């Protein structure tokens, strides 16, 4: 009888969680996209004042922030998939992944400051 292999041969086990979260964040973004398109079709902002009024409501602000958070996580998983597929040397991969993480962190702070910051 073959002895059952008891060790799990693969890595750090974040794969399935990331896979699932990539799907969940996709659904969040899809819902926001449909809502935003409907919103713009229903009442297209005609002036700066309109546009500003639209984003002064907390509902759209929070929804946009949730969209951005979902996007950043989604982009992290997607970009890491691309890096894992094409960049093999560990050092290069580490540097590029760190760069992607930094860029994503920058997007987060930037988006938050646009939505809530200096006005």
């Amino acid at each position, binding site marked *: 009888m073959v002895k059952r292999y008891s060790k799990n041969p693969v890595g750090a086990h974040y794969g399935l969680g990331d896979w699932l979260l990539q*799907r969940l964040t*996709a*659904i969040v973004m*899809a819902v926001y*996209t449909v809502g935003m398109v409907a919103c713009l079709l229903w009442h297209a902002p005609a*002036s*700066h004042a309109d*546009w*500003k009024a639209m*984003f002064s409501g907390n509902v759209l602000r929070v929804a946009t922030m949730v969209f951005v958070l979902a*996007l950043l996580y989604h*982009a992290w998983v*997607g*970009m890491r998939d*691309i890096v894992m597929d094409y960049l093999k040397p560990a050092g290069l991969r580490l540097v590029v992944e760190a760069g*992607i993480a930094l*860029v994503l962190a920058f*997007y987060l702070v*930037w*988006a938050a400051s*646009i939505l809530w910051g200096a*006005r």
Partner: protein
Amino acid sequence: MSSAPKPRPKYYDLSLAHLPPPGLVSIFHRVSGLALFFPILPLLLYALQQTLGSEAGWSHWKDVFSRPVVKIILLGVVWLYAHHFWAGLRYLLLDVHIGIDKAPAKASAVVVLVLGVLTALVVGWCIW
């Protein structure tokens, strides 16, 4: 029997023409995702910052978006987003085992490719 593995043949065929529709959907999904991460997202954030920031910023971007060249670029951006959107919905359906047989998967891939272009055309019709 040789102990070292033979070097694997390298054959890069970067032409997309031979790819079946699901393959095209897949590579466009990847390329559009990459382009949306950079440079499209920072450009959109920059535009949002300026247009929300001041009256001058709003009218500046209004001028920018009225140029035909910019409108064509914008259509490209809309296509990238739309393709990523529709292809993503198709993958979500495939994940829950809807349409995973060969024929429906091919058909849905064609639908995704058409919807992406169609979305860009509709937006183009709206902004022209």
